[in-house]
């Protein structure tokens, strides 16, 4: 069954290819998923640099025993903000930039299901990130006696350290309120992309023909909408304890600080799959393109992603093996954690089988995709050792875990994201990133990353806990720490190379054709960058590898360069950004002890939402 795509009776004149709106107002009101994708990208990249700077300061402090680079208070803020920034303001939004830009193209849609909600998600993210990072500078407003009052309770904020009694200042308040704002952004995007992927696919695009990146995006969004409510509740409890004198986590009232850990990790473990699945999806796209072979075991790769999503709900207490849950609980969570290694391993083997027998073109994107596999194997294996509670009792809360998480998050997610950047840069910007510079970026990153994080396995096993601003020379880990710091500095250099590549490409990058790589999926069937309406004619999909010739079908014909009939494209809207602005105002109210701010913030949100609801806006 196929339908023409254009709706009847457009209210606005049809847009022409050249009708890209210009000017600041057009960006503030944009509802175009491509522009929103770019906004996410640049904002997330900026926060990635901030988080990276925080990491460098941490490593400089730890380069020697009894370091004096930063004070204890500042160090505790640095590692808290490094984790919080990287997870919520860098990695998730970088993935979101690809969800936004690429998923509608991969499914043959003109935009997402709810374009204004999409814009709202972005503005809320930006405002949340600014709110959180404002804490670096606003100490004097709180009579703190110092400039920086950034959150300092760790990215995981364990109570009762983060209760008012032990963290009296505004630091944790910024953390709680900032995360609540960011949660709204993620939830809104979650609903949007679930409906988009399920409901807006082009004719012929059955679910089992969906590109793996779009599949993993779908699973990720289901994880988002189920996991974020749990941390929302956990944060509400902490907020109430800190501001309204409740006792949700206070032992003196009979409550348990461990409740926080359960709620946090019920969110936190699905969160790590939220962080890795999109990158796994990217790898699953890049490998077939640059081996000129289909993904080996598509069905298995998709199902294992879905299975990981479900099973990810059953392992949370493996973050709590030292809490004393008892041998039965420890055994159960150990078993479920080991079990989840199986579908994860299956993906790795399928990727290697994709490469096997292929015609491998060593583009930078491919380098990062292969690097992902190599690094994720290491991170996965150290994860297996964590799955054994008695062994974990020596590893948890030491640098061994820091090694594990950075192998999977840097060697995994970040490598995957870089692969996506090099792969989709031409589609998103119309220019190709420079390949030699890209290879340099890759190798510097690869060496730097391994130098920074491999020694941490040993540092941890030799007894250095994590989250300590200094350590004694007696531990004997000074040399390894110095090596790790050098690795971190090398990563810094590699990022500079990447930034240079981006800058250079703006002016001198090779102009990209529709399909620079010979891709099999729909995004390669249209110009780079695509026209505002994406597809001149919504294509009919003939198979998983719809643009390739396969034993099942001829290659699909790409849409014509010019649309046969005018295509209506919705205009922008002010209401998403207006509604979004109400949220930080609302969040300021507890910080400023000002009820009127809460009322004002709520009023702004209500006003924005009402105008949004009654605005004539046709998708």
């Amino acid at each position, binding site marked *: 069954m196929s339908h023409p795509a254009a709706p009847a009776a457009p209210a606005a004149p049809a847009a022409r290819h050249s009708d890209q709106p210009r000017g600041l107002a057009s960006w503030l009101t944009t509802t175009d998923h491509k522009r929103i994708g770019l906004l996410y990208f640049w904002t997330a990249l900026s926060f990635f640099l901030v988080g990276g700077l925080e990491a460098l300061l941490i490593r400089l402090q730890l380069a020697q025993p009894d370091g004096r680079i930063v004070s204890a208070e500042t160090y505790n803020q640095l590692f808290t903000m490094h984790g919080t920034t990287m997870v919520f303001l860098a990695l998730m939004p970088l993935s979101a930039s690809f969800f936004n830009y690429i998923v509608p193209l991969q499914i043959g849609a003109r935009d997402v299901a709810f374009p204004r909600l999409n814009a709202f998600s972005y503005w809320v993210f930006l405002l949340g990130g600014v709110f959180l990072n404002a804490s670096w500078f606003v100490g004097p407003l709180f009579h703190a006696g110092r400039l920086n009052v950034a959150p300092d309770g760790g990215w995981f904020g364990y109570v009762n350290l983060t209760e008012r009694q032990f963290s009296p200042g505004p630091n944790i308040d910024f953390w709680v309120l900032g995360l609540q704002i960011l949660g709204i952004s993620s939830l809104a995007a979650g609903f949007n992309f679930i409906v988009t992927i399920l409901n807006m696919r082009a004719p012929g695009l059955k679910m089992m023909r969906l590109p793996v990146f779009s599949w993993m995006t779908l699973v990720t969004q289901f994880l988002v909408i189920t996991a974020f409510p749990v941390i929302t509740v956990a944060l509400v409890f902490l907020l109430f304890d800190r501001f309204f004198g409740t006792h949700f986590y206070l032992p003196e009232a009979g409550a348990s600080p461990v409740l926080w850990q359960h709620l946090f990790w019920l969110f936190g473990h699905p969160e790590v799959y939220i962080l890795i699945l999109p990158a796994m999806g990217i790898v699953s796209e890049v490998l077939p393109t640059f081996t000129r072979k289909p993904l*080996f075991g598509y069905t298995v790769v998709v199902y294992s992603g879905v299975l990981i999503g479900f099973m990810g709900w059953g392992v949370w207490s493996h973050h709590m093996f*030292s809490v*004393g849950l008892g041998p039965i609980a420890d055994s159960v969570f150990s078993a479920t954690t080991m079990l989840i290694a199986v579908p994860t391993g299956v993906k790795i083997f399928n990727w*290697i089988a994709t490469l096997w027998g292929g*015609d491998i073109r060593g583009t930078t994107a491919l380098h990062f995709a292969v690097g992902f596999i190599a690094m994720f194997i290491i991170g996965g294996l150290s994860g*297996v050792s964590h799955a054994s509670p008695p062994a974990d009792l020596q590893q948890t809360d030491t640098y061994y875990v820091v090694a594990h998480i950075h192998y999977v998050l840097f060697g995994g997610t970040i490598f995957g994201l870089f692969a996506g950047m090099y792969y989709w840069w031409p589609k998103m910007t119309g220019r190709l990133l420079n390949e030699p510079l890209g290879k340099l970026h890759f190798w510097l990153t690869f060496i730097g990353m391994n130098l920074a994080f491999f020694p941490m396995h040993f540092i941890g096993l030799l007894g250095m806990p994590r989250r300590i601003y200094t350590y004694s020379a007696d531990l004997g880990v000074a*040399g390894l720490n110095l090596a790790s710091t050098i690795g971190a500095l090398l990563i810094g250099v590699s990022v500079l190379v990447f930034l240079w590549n981006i800058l250079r490409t703006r002016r001198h990058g090779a102009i990209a054709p529709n399909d620079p790589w010979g891709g099999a999926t729909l995004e390669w069937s249209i110009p780079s960058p695509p026209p505002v309406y994406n597809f001149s004619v919504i294509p009919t999909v003939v198979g998983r590898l719809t643009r390739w010739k396969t034993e099942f079908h001829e290659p699909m014909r790409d849409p014509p360069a010019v649309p046969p009939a005018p295509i209506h494209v919705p205009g922008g809207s002010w209401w998403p950004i207006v509604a979004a602005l109400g949220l930080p105002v609302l969040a300021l109210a507890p910080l400023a002890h000002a009820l009127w701010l809460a009322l004002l913030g709520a009023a702004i949100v209500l006003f924005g939402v009402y105008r949004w609801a009654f605005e004539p806006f046709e998708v």
Partner: protein
Amino acid sequence: MPPRQGLRLISITLALSACGGPFPQSTLHPRSDFAVGIDRLFTGIFWWALAVFLLVETVLLITIIRFRHREGTPAPRATHGHTVMEIAWTLAPAVILVFVAVPTVRTIFATAGEAPADALQVDVIGHQWWWEYKYPELGIVTANEMHVPVGKPVRVSITSADVIHAFWAPALGGKRDAIPGQINRIAFRADSVGDYSGQCAEFCGASHANMRLRVLVDSGPAFRAWVERERGGPAPQAAGSLAEQGRQLFARSACIACHTVAGVSRGAIGPSLTHVGGRTTIAAGLFPNDSSHLARWIANAPALKPGSLMTRMAPPLTDADVATLVAYVQSLK
């Protein structure tokens, strides 16, 4: 120690000796049944992990080298999958994991903190940022340095007076969280006399990095001697000595609000000082117990341990006063 384990230990130690050693907080030198049980388990997992690592990474490496693009390569065969392979590489890891899971569950139950009825009971209470130890059967209250007899079972009950900490002496076993309102137990039997360092392993605030500890495993006679000393009152100060002046200063200063010296003061906010002179370290394992460190610590603790509740006196102590207090503290053996 079995030869295989020794070989691994030697190779790692050799590899690391270039970076410095010995390693007083290493998890790889187990000195108790608890630690040995963990180490055996980890060794097994390590070898499995190494084998998988070598196999898979080698296959990956061979693949990307062998199949890299060369001119004139024909188009690759479009393989979509292979059911038998999928089953094989699903089952194989699952089987390996069984070899990890079974010893894991065994060790979980073996190290679940059960100790025989005649085990020595030590209560550990974590504070920001020091460790309180009580021996209820022996009537001893001390801090930061725990003494236990070699070869005898010890049951440690761990809790906290404020935030969540974690008690960890790597050579003697894994860590357990110290949670307010909850008691966690570990049990171990140390197998070698020695001095084992550890530190708090759960982020607990400003001076988490400075919350260190020692566990001293004594021979039977040495332990009994320590018990005798600890149960007794504080050592007396010679009349007219600097230490005697220090005692008098101590007794009329704010020190007594926080510290206990049996017969002199009853403070419960800071560590007991009744026998502090006999400890090897001060400030929760931070510094050696010598005059210069004691002097700096007493003069201005927060400068050395950020956030410390042992705030500087106002007006600050004179150097002379500090010297008398140092002498007094050192006399409290």
